């Protein structure tokens, strides 16, 4: 079980959180200008890297806020957590 540092509530058990997938994916500003392939790439394709990843998590049963987690998918070690627009915080 992971111990995840919520940027607002502090360290909490993984069971309080919901995983939201890869971070830093922004919706295209003008979707009409995109081809179907480009739209599908935005919608479905994720890098799924082995190792260091930036992910978004939601503190579902706590403060209900989204935030960014830097996590290694091999060791499961969490390097830092951030508010969506803020500075990092080491666990």
């Amino acid at each position, binding site marked *: 079980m992971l111990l995840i540092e919520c940027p*607002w*509530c*502090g360290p*909490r*058990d993984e*069971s*309080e959180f919901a995983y939201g997938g890869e971070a830093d994916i922004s919706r295209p500003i003008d979707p009409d200008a995109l081809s179907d392939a480009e739209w599908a790439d935005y919608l479905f394709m994720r890098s799924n890297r082995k190792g260091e990843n930036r992910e978004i998590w939601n503190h579902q*049963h*706590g*403060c*209900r*806020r989204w935030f960014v987690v830097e996590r290694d998918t091999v060791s499961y070690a969490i390097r830092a957590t951030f508010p969506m627009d803020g500075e990092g915080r080491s666990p």
Partner: protein
Amino acid sequence: MPERPRDTHALDAFMKGFSATGGGSAEARVLVHQGFSVHNLRLRGQDHAQAFARCGLPAPPANNEWAGDDETLYWLGPDEWLLVCPEGMATPDFIASGAPPEPMTVNDLTGGWVMLTLSGPGARPLLERGCTIDLNPAVMGEGHCAQTLLAKSPVLLATHADPERVTLLVRRSFAEYVALWLAHTGEPCHIAFAFQARHAAGS
């Protein structure tokens, strides 16, 4: 004021079935509160302290803390609080008028929450059996609150100066389940449940 029928409580059925147990040997007691209002306050992108002052509210509590005596403000998130007022006490004007002087959203959630106070030497050990947060009084002491899971049910826990006392706010639809879990898990310490007396008529 016209006479109001007594509100039904989410734990009426549970309490009927449980009233016989407990007694003097209880190491954990659960008081089921009645007659209070609950409002959810949200304020986006503002100077929180100033906005609260203009609403006639005490200063917003810091992260993971609660403040107040009768009227209580719980921190829920960086821009969200829960205001709990006992029945008969005047709620802030902006709640009565429905028009906060700030761009604040106010939601009356009174019917949606059940409030319990656990007390006695068995209270914290009992909660620890269903909760992953550190309930040690050195960590979760006076004036702290936390939204978390108790036996998989979402709850708001608040701790007091008296380490043997913990307030538990539970959503109405989970209340009977949580009460049954407390009753079952607290059986070895002879857990006792009681309704809090209603405030005197006229309020």
